[in-house]
């Protein structure tokens, strides 16, 4: 299990990395943490002609507040540093809660949020979270830059809206509002394994304690990350109690299309999706009532 030969360049600047990508297009891959890309290269499932190592581009890492409303995370931000970031814990509680579920400490020491999102594995946690939070993703190329909404960014299994010359450089997520609560839960066979099903949800309440907006995203529940549209919409304007939670959990089971695998049948995945949705929604609602 050794990678096929390729050409390697360590990018000295973002401009240089983008120029290489523009020249090689789909024949080139960016190397960030390498925790998804390198295994596929070791299996020779991926055989890029050129590997553009962006690890030297330290300016592409870090978390910054963009006004009071949103947080921007550089694509090269490693999961381990995000896990330890106090601002992330405060402003992005959904991300913070999910991070320990993402593989193992050694993987999070290298793995980056940008690499994870651009890889777009449907079983992966972060795409579902970015979709649940309705985040935006910044794509840069020699032609310029554009921001892509999460719903447009994820195109299915291992597929995104990025053009062959573009690099994902940043993700913007809304900071948790007052009277909002979030919860992430997943079931996996072993600690750190890909989830059989994972559920990410947020609940924002109005002054009267009714649901202003709820958003539910799932991983490993379809071709890509899934936003549970009907279930999310069903909660709007209502006080979230046991009946509302049961209704949303049942709707989630219709919103998803899990593929089934050797560890879990489609029916079992659907069952787990309902159970986790009910639990996560209840927790998120309680957290929203407490104000965080």
């Amino acid at each position, binding site marked *: 299990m050794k990678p096929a030969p390729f050409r390697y360049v360590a990018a000295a600047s973002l401009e240089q990395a983008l120029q290489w990508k523009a020249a090689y297009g789909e024949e080139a891959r960016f190397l960030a943490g390498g925790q998804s890309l390198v295994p596929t290269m070791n299996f020779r499932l991926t055989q890029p002609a050129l590997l553009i190592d962006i690890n030297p581009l330290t300016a592409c890492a870090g978390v910054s507040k963009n006004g009071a409303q949103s947080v921007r995370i550089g694509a090269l931000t490693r999961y381990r540093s995000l896990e330890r970031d106090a601002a992330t814990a405060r402003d992005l509680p959904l991300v913070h809660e999910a991070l320990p579920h993402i593989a193992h*400490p050694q993987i999070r020491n290298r793995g980056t949020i940008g690499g994870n999102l651009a890889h777009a594995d449907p079983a992966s946690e972060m795409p579902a979270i970015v979709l649940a939070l309705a985040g935006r993703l910044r794509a840069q190329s020699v032609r310029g830059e554009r921001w892509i909404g999460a719903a447009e960014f994820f195109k299915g299994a291992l597929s995104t809206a990025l053009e062959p010359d573009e690099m994902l450089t940043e993700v913007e997520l809304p900071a948790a509002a007052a009277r909002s609560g979030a919860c992430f839960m997943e079931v996996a066979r072993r600690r750190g394994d890909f989830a059989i099903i994972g559920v990410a949800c947020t609940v924002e309440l109005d002054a009267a304690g009714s649901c202003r907006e709820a958003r539910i995203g799932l991983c490993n529940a379809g071709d890509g990350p899934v936003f549970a549209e009907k279930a999310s919409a069903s909660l709007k304007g209502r006080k979230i109690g046991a009946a509302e939670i049961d209704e949303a959990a049942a709707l989630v089971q219709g919103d998803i299309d899990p593929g089934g695998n050797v560890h879990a049948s489609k029916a079992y995945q659907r069952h787990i999706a309902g159970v986790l949705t009910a639990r996560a929604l209840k927790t998120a609602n309680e957290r929203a009532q407490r104000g965080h």
Partner: protein
Amino acid sequence: MSGRSVATDANGAAETHEVAVTVNGEPYRRRVEARLLLSDFLRHDLALAGTHVGCEHGVCGACTIIFDGAAVRSCLMFAAQADGHAILTVEGLAADREHLHPLQEAMRECHGLQCGYCTPGILMTMKAFLDETPAPDEAQIREALSGNLCRCTGYQHIVEAMQLAAQQLRT
């Protein structure tokens, strides 16, 4: 295939990269092919075969080393990426050849290994963990160990070894 042709020069020789890296405090300088994994570089080019290779896709943890202070999978990095960086492998754990590191002593004491294949990776994982978390509880130890597979021990003795090592390292 285009992937092959661009990685060689006009004479068909593989493209190589200069790597200057510090391993266990010693400076090394080598020329490597781009596709050489860091795990193979340590074992074959530097003859530091204490770093083991298990699954080669990031699942088993046998190849775990400490890269710039953080435990990482050496099978998921290329040697070329180590240029200018500092690595600690199991060979650099003990202060000298006559003594074991307290982590190694504790593994021996508690019967934390049987065949020993996974042990170097576990030692490097737990070295980085205990540096950061000197007084861990059992749940934290199990979480830290989650990325290293052991097929012999059932983990219980490793957990006990780490509790002992943490205690010894604190005193």
